[in-house]
């Protein structure tokens, strides 16, 4: 079975933001419920949203609010119990395991809280992995250039355990970039990092958004939401706020926590 191609229109109907850009992500009445023992727990309930291409979106919420579930559904790591998820015009809902796998390979790239680098591969090779998986050789520049762009031009042949946490997360970002996919999903990317390193990582993600990538950052740190184009706030599996930062978008170097 192939993905259903869905025509996406310029945005304008979701809670007051309209850019006229193409919709990257569209979720309609999406719910995700899990069975825990004999009882059912709703991680997400009736979520509707649209995210434009090139937006820097921060998904904010306390633990258990459903923010990681939201990102997993967009990234096709998980499937919705109800509703429809369409990403870059492809309907994920009802897709087979192989199609989901292909979708992830061709559409999204992940950045994890604990980096999840392959400990047996050097920084260069970890980034090369992103390139090899998508088979987009030659696109988006040389692997060494990508690493240099995240400030790791001198650490190419180091193994993960020879790098600091910040450096490891930079490699993870470089790996995501190397896939050439336009949607970057970052789940608590600064969760394991100190403030200064965290800010540097956010700066890098901001640069990717500026370069046209759609970036979704999941965090429980409200301060981080200040650098976003758009903040989606979740509570108990529902969107309780969706819009630009309350005090307006600020540059990364103005953050403090």
């Amino acid at each position, binding site marked *: 079975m192939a993905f259903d191609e869905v025509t996406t229109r310029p945005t304008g109907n979701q809670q007051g933001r309209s850019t006229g850009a193409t919709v990257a992500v569209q979720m309609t009445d999406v719910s995700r419920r899990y069975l825990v023992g004999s009882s059912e727990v709703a991680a997400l309930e009736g979520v509707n949203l649209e995210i434009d291409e090139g937006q820097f979106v921060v998904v904010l919420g306390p633990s258990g609010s459903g923010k*990681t579930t939201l990102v*997993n559904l967009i*990234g096709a*790591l*998980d499937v919705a119990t109800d509703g429809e998820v369409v990403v870059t015009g492809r309907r994920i809902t009802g897709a087979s*395991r*192989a199609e989901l*796998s*292909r*979708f*992830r*390979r*061709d559409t999204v*790239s*992940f950045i*994890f*809280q*604990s*980096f*999840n*680098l*392959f*400990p*047996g*591969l*050097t920084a260069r*090779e*970890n980034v*090369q*992995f*992103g*390139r*090899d*998986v*998508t088979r987009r050789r030659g696109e988006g520049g040389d692997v060494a250039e990508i690493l240099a762009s995240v400030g790791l031009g001198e650490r190419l*042949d180091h*193994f*993960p*355990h*020879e790098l600091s*946490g910040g450096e*490891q997360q930079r490699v993870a970002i470089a790996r995501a970039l190397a*896939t050439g996919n336009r949607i970057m999903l970052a789940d608590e990317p600064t969760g*394991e990092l100190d403030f200064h390193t965290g800010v540097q990582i956010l700066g890098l993600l901001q640069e990717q958004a500026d370069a046209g990538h759609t970036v979704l950052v999941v965090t429980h740190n409200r301060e981080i939401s200040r650098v976003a184009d758009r903040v989606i706030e979740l509570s108990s599996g529902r969107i309780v706020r969706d819009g630009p930062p309350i005090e307006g978008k600020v540059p990364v170097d103005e953050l403090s926590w």
Partner: protein
Amino acid sequence: MRLSFWLRWSGRDLRKRWPQVVAIALVIAVGTGVFAGLGSTTQWRRESNDASYAALGMHDIKLSVSEGSTAAAGRLRRLVDQADGLDGRVDVRAMEERLIAPTQVDASIDDEAILAPGRLVGVPVSEGGPRVDGIEVREGRALGPSDDGQPVGLLEVHFADGRKLAPTGALKIAGGASLDYVGTALSPEYFYVIDPRGGLLGAMDFAVVFAPLATVQRLTGWAGRVNDLVIGLRPGVDRERLVAAIEDAAAEGAPDLGITVSVTEDDRSWQVLHDDIAGDQQFWNVFAGLILAGAAFAAFNLAGRMVEAQRREIGVGMALGATPATIARRPLLVGLEIAVLGAVLGVVVGLLVDLAIGSVFEDLLPLPVWKTPFQVGVFVRGAALGVALPMVATAWPVWRAVRIPPVEAIRTGHLAVRGSRLEALARRLPVPGGSLSRLPLRNILRAPRRTLLTALGIASAITTLVATFGLVDSFVGTLTVADRTTLAGTPNRVMVELDRFHAVDSPEVRAIRDLSVVGHAETGVKLGGTLAPLSSKGGGAERSQAAGDRRSEVNVLLEVRDLDHGEWVPPVSKGRLPRSSDEILLAAEAGRDLGVGPGDTVLLRHPVATTAGSTRIEETIMRVAGLHPSPFRFEAFLARPDVLGLTGSANAIQVRPAPGRTVADVQRAIFGLPGVASVQPASAMADALETAIDQSVGIFRVIQYFMLFLAVLIAFNSTSIAADERSRDHATMLAFGLPVRSLLRLAVVEGLMVGLLGTAIGLIVGRLVVEWFAVTLVANTLPEVGITAQLATGTMTSAVALGVAAVAIAPLFTLRRLLRVDVPSTLRVME
């Protein structure tokens, strides 16, 4: 905290990893089960041997007159009676004279020609005899007084069973006489049949016929004559004193008979059955040791991983102030539970091994009494090993874990990632292809300890396989050498042995020469002798101290033949062929055992024919002219018969079939002629060795099946651990859209690399074990044959195929787990 709490907790740990737990328990079970099962056979065989020899009254002392000689009935008995200090009524339980004669047996059925060299054993059948070296009838009926003088006998069971003969039937013996065998039977001297010409290799190719004494005397033309006397002593009698007295009496009263006095332990069959137990035990010990080593490596592997997975919990425990002893309780209990499971399963495996190997032994060594009781001691030792192995395997990583600082143990995320020193190597090692191609090798180098444990586990299984196959290869290789040396140039030679010495121009010899089926006939002499080393080289006459020890002597079959113009001459590997009367050509194996080479001298103890027609034993110093490459140690060649006093005589004839005639034609034509003892192809010895190999293969098959199972278990266990350890890597790859088949391919490639490493180690160690088997073990239990250690290409290919296949297939067992991996949850796991 109560024990039940710890048991519950550790039980949950076990359930969580049940496939690995079951696999490791099975590995331990195979190791300890094979150890216990094979170990039991030692006790079985000891008990069965003792009971069997006792049941049939094995002789304590035996008097044999020299080959070709006989004595009037009653003469040997009188000699013993005259022995100084012997009181027949007090010391002797029974004493019986016998007549034993070489013959050729024709047991052909319909179209199938069954011609074999053999022996007629004439025994007293009155008064319930024979009472020494008794006969147990397996099928048919026993011989009784009414059979004395009648053409009836009993066929030895090894030959009858080996040739699939009916329990009763008709035979023809050399000279054309007919004899009905009324049953099949066993007797102590033939519990393990030894062909006097071919050493240990006679089980199926040497036909022994037990018949009444008068019958054998009539059939051989030796009416009223005997050549053997066996004595059964009463318990507590000083046997050595009696042996000395009988030897003195024989030397004084019958120097013309060349009498040899021997005791139970001199009997070659007795020696083989007893030495074989010790040899086999060493053999089993090596196998059990290898299997246990495999089990130990696998246990260390799993225990290490389980403790590693609990690292953080151990750290938390330490942070909460728990003592190392308390922290160690849970993983140690897991180890104990696996140990108990392994030991219990080990008993089951042991019983299965006993069942399989017991029936193989009963077929291979038919004894009148086979005792196969459950060996409690051996099984307890096996179970103790089964418990100790995983306990030690668990204790080591636990001890290491509780010594780690708590802060390090509870560390999570990227800080918990560790590298290995081999990564420096990995960085420089060029691997073609992309990042995915590099991953398998990197993973191997990143976890060198686990890689090594897995490789060694596989290696132990491969070693065992290579050792079993390699032993067969070595025998087959030896067989090939034997064929090459004995059949070179004249593959159709037929060896005829005469019943005694005849003049080379006698009617008996002429009758053979004149047969139309005979193309060429060449007379010779074959006679048994013994070689002993001398203490000095270059003609020194001092017999070395070692020569006093019977076991340091080498029994040889002296063959006198025309080495200048003969149709076939033995090939020479070192030195040259003998030219003069005092020169001898030895097998390289005999030279090695005696410590002599060309130019050295040896002491030859041999019979000499006297002018009176009898023989006497003499010792002659012989110079070793050269060595021949035949693996049969007993083959020795002389150029002239004068040293044996047999100039102009022959008891052996080599025959080449006439053009268009076959070996079988010659055998049939010669068989019925007078004076013929046996007719067999020159390849008979090699054929007998082939038979012996075929018999041994049954035992090896049992071991091989268990090894195959063990290799797959170890491989599965290792792959399962690897999949467990790499679950986060796998989840990340899946998150990036890598298909499951690619993950599986990575696991297979990684498995192949470890498999190749393990196989390479297994081949090397296996080759060394085969070398040890050939040089030490087989050399002790089968000294007549010089086995050269070798591994056939097929063996190596099979070992590689098995080693690689086992580990390459194992990842397929993890497919289900890969298909069901919960990517989001696995990615969120903190370590």
